[in-house]
């Protein structure tokens, strides 16, 4: 899934570790999501969207194919 997590995170002035701590995962997981190497669970996607005070579909979008 494509996502604009890096932009949102940088806009909020957060490091990957900050965001990871905030949503209860490891920094490696945030890094993998940002690089489109891991699709988060629905629970984590909700947590991320909730953290940035937006909807899941605002952060994540399905791949074109």
């Amino acid at each position, binding site marked *: 899934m494509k996502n604009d997590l890096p932009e949102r995170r940088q806009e*909020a002035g*957060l490091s990957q570790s*900050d*965001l*990871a*701590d*905030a949503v*209860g*995962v*490891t*920094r*490696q*997981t945030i890094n*993998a999501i940002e690089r489109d190497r*891991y699709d*988060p*669970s629905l*629970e*984590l996607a909700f947590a991320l969207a909730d*953290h*940035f*005070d937006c909807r899941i579909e605002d952060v994540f979008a399905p791949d074109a194919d």
Partner: protein
Amino acid sequence: MSVSQNTTGLTRRTYERIVYAIVGTGIVGLFAGMLVGQQLAGTVVYLLGCWVGGSIAVLAPKLSDAPLQDERDNALHNRASGLTMGLTMMFGLTVIPALYVLDESGHVELTGTVWGAIWAASALFLLYGVSLGIVKHRR
């Protein structure tokens, strides 16, 4: 927007280093024991290393507030386990029946080691089936 910094307690890197160090010490202890003729002591060090390291590896993520393991670790572990079982099953299903038939027909003679491997693979499949049943039942 609040960020809960977790700067105290066990970090993921420390956790991994501790587990690797303890298990590594056990392995080194085993080989050191073999080299100096203290096999029993080496074995004790090895078993202690495996048990203590394994216990920390399993218990620390459950007891720590810091995210030492998360859903991605579980997903990676599941994929690796599935790949391992798939490869083992593919090898077992294609090779074991053929070996058995060839042995029965006298074309080859399976050694005790090969039979041991066949039994080990069979036990692994059985254990996988039981584990899968337990996981399905508990979900």
